[in-house]
């Protein structure tokens, strides 16, 4: 009975984490100034540029490397996979090594598939999911800097914008303390994302071999 409750709520947590992961791929957000970075002096111009450039990206196809760090245990595990995005709300994240796991978001629907089974979730069934969905839309549209869900500070170096996002809502704060997104200045897409948990553990995802605005089938997001 309790285990059933656990499973249901855990599935929500897993789904939530998946959506947060997806949402932050497109977002920008800190407290102390990150080393090697300076605050963006003209934030209004950056906001406008971010929104304008984001609108130009209709699709992304990319590889990624994820590194999960268990800080207290001085342990990390790396995984690799493929990532697809198509405007405005289709995302597929596929882990291929050393384990297989797929997340597909298509509109309000979310699929989580592991080696054994798959879970289909309606994002609209939960207020928190709706909140996160809105974050994703804000991020894709380049309007996340106006989001009420995060306090966002923007920094830059020569090649990168760094957005340090501190969650303001209790529901998001339960899962992580900050999210740091690095955005390529040349195309305003995510170069890396780092999700920091309250425990000190963190997960960093580095995107590589990005292809923008290429043609690929919607079947990638079908389930």
């Amino acid at each position, binding site marked *: 009975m309790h285990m059933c409750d656990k499973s249901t709520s*855990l599935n929500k*947590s897993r789904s939530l984490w998946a959506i947060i992961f997806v949402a932050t791929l497109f977002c920008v957000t800190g407290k102390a100034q990150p080393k090697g970075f300076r605050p963006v002096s003209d934030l209004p111009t950056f906001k406008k540029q971010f929104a304008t450039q984001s609108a130009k990206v209709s699709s992304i196809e990319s590889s990624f490397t994820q590194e*999960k760090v268990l800080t207290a*245990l001085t342990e990390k595990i790396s995984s690799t996979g493929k990532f697809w995005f198509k405007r405005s709300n289709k995302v597929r994240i596929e882990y291929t090594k050393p384990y297989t796991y797929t997340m597909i978001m298509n509109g309000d629907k979310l699929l989580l598939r*592991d*080696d054994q089974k798959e879970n289909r979730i309606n994002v609209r069934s939960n207020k928190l999911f709706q909140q996160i969905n809105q974050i994703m839309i804000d991020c894709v549209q380049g309007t996340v800097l106006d989001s009420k869900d995060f306090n966002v500070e923007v920094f830059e170096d020569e090649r990168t914008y760094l957005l340090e996002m501190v969650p303001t809502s209790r529901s998001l704060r339960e899962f992580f303390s900050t999210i740091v997104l690095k955005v390529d200045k040349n195309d305003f897409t995510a170069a890396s994302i780092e*999700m920091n948990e309250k425990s000190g553990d963190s997960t960093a995802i580095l995107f590589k071999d990005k292809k923008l605005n290429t043609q690929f089938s919607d079947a990638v997001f079908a389930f």
Partner: protein
Amino acid sequence: MRCLLFESIIAFLLVGCSSEYSHLQKIQDVGDCPDKVLPLIIKTSWYDASVDVVGKHLSGLLFIKNMPDSSKRVVFTSEAGLTFFDFSFSKEGNFHTVSVIKQFDKKAVIRTLQKDFSLILGLPFLQSPAERYSAGDDFYFGFKEKYGTAYFITNKDCASLQRLEWGDRGKRLVTVRTPGSGYPTPAIIEIDHHTFSMKIKLTRIEKE
């Protein structure tokens, strides 16, 4: 008629409540059999975890680490990185929750997981002495704990570990099997609960 009904009820209750360990024959001398199997130690490893509980399914990554002070840590994360819980077992087997997310933070859930992990880590078997039993082709070694009796079961030549079990008041509660390669590097660990629908399958991950 009434008497027949009464006898039927009694017979039903006796069958229904009969001990799943009643066939065990207590024995004394098993030589060095336990020493061939114990201690059960899992090397520090990552596992791909699949959990089916009361019709629901979830998955993630389970990390088991042997710490320098001989304590053990069990950490469960999602594939995308979120840490669900971090449990610690001291050298003496004492349990401590290092961190747990709200969704897992229920007494019954934590106790169930504590017992499951304690068994696969072989912690109950560090205590002594064991009760020794024979049943068919197997030897049973039972260690009484606060929440029941932990058994490790071998074949009679003690060549291999057959399975691990938690039992309580004659009822089998949990069975652990390691098909394929066994300790200290089990490729697969299967945990089956018998009093409610819950199965956990752990498949060892070779890190890149």
